[in-house]
């Protein structure tokens, strides 16, 4: 568990911890700005705490009607070249996405 204060404003260190979880490299001025703005929004959102939800199930989605199961058949899909076409760095002949080296 992250040692955050509940909604009563964020410190820069707390915002940095969230940014690390979110894979976002924020600038010092963004850290300060978000500390204030996230604090404001969460202070407002705090009102949900007042609602009595004892015994109320959560709603994660509202898809009430689903299509029936379908047979598990092999269907056409994107070919490899199309799938790699937008990659910023791809080994096209080998058919791989390339990322910065992680092993020596």
């Amino acid at each position, binding site marked *: *568990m*992250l040692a*955050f204060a*509940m909604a009563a404003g964020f410190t820069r260190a707390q*915002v940095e911890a*969230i*940014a*690390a*979880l*979110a*894979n*976002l*490299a*924020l*600038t010092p001025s*963004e850290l300060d*700005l*978000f500390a204030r*703005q*996230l604090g*404001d*929004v*969460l202070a*407002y*959102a*705090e*009102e*949900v*705490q007042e*609602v009595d*939800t004892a015994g*109320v*199930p*959560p*709603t*994660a*989605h*509202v*898809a*009430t*009607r*689903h*299509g*029936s199961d*379908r047979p598990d058949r092999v269907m056409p899909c*994107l070919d490899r070249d*199309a*799938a790699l*076409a*937008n*990659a*910023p*760095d791809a080994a096209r002949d080998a058919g791989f*996405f390339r*990322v*910065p*080296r*992680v*092993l*020596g």
Partner: protein
Amino acid sequence: MSVPATIRDARDAFRTGARSATDLCRGSLAQIAAADGALHAFQTVTADRALARAAEIDRDRERWRDAPLAGVPIALKDNLCTRGVRTTAGSKILESFVPPYDATVVTRLERAGAVVVGKTNCDEFAMGSSTENSAFGPTRNPWALDRAPGGSSGGSAAAVAARMAPVALGSDTGGSIRQPASFCGIVGLKPTYGRVSRYGLLAFASSLDQIGPLTLTVGDAALTLNVIAGADAADATSAPDEVPDYTAALDGDVRSATIGVPSRMLESGVDADVARAFRAALDVLAARGATLVDVELPHAKHAIAVYYLVATAEASSNLARYDGVRYGFRAPEAKAEGGPSTDALRSMYARTRAGGFGPEVKRRIMLGTYVLSAGYYDAYYLKAQQVRTLILRDYDRAFERVDVVATPTSPTPPFRIGERIADPLQMYLADVFTVSAPLAGLPAVSVPCGFTSGRLPMGLQLTGRRFDEATVLRIADAYERDTGWWKQEPRGV
């Protein structure tokens, strides 16, 4: 020659042979060329492709003549994937993304004879209520160039209001079709969750997102829904229900309709012009024979808080895919320190996302990450989902007594560009009337209901039962028959 303002007129012109698809397409492109310098409704104009497609339709006119959207120019929000046409979602991170496939709605529209003329500007990843969050600059409101067109589908709304195309598609997660429709004086329909396939819509919040039409008339919205609705094997959340002919429901008869008005919600925070226009709209419907009753939606006041907890949580998860590996922007390699390690990879992700996302998207990813993090999940995300259940039950209870719930679409007329952008919370609070329908999965339409003394458009919102778009559209159409606000054109565009 310009393009007819409505789908019906454009399609009929093609059917009777009065206009070719090419001619209609040229009309649309000419209006875009004339007006888009001032408005920036379009992110990409696909002129060559559109003309080639129109020519194809003209070559095979007999085959296309009776197609529901034959020859009709259409604009698509730039978060809908178009095969071979750049799709940015208003984000720098997708600045050069060219989808290898079409969204299901695009396939269906083209199969119905529509001609895609371009991709419209939007708030980055559909996050915003003003289109100011586009990485490519704001769109301006055709009714007043210093005002926001609303958002996030602001480009789509401005394009239709400025008669650049008779129809555009948008997406709605918390009001992103209805609020810009209201701000631009046109019709915007958010269908029931599951009514329209989301395949090929760049995801923001998957339990809320839904694609829908922006048009000048309710009849045109119904026509478009006929084409795009229905089950799709590529979207497991699309509903298997039959698609009725929505235009058949538009008989002008509201004598058996009961309209619920949540008076308590409207007591404060609503602009005086908006309140007046809303009351007048109810009077019009009552005069046509509809019954008005007061309804209580006791948890509606929590909808904004619930929405911004649920939507940001889902967004933080959905947008994790933009990491500079498979598509889009990648930050230049940082200098390796001490040889290869997973740090170099993580640093690439973090710098790519920092450089590719704009401030509002970062803010929402941060908020969503926080509310999903260990120790806060129960207090925020789970709690919000429970209150979501209560909001849903409020509507279910109301719909035992009424057919639709009526509110203004937005508590204010269009605001000035720059006026709210520095205060995200104030921007969020303006979504008060639009966030409930997606939380409860309900269909809702915004139909023009007049102008302020300063000639700014306002909208009436009608929210209906799940999969009962027909009733929502029937009542909106009846109101439109008596008012016809859509016939007024913005000056100077």
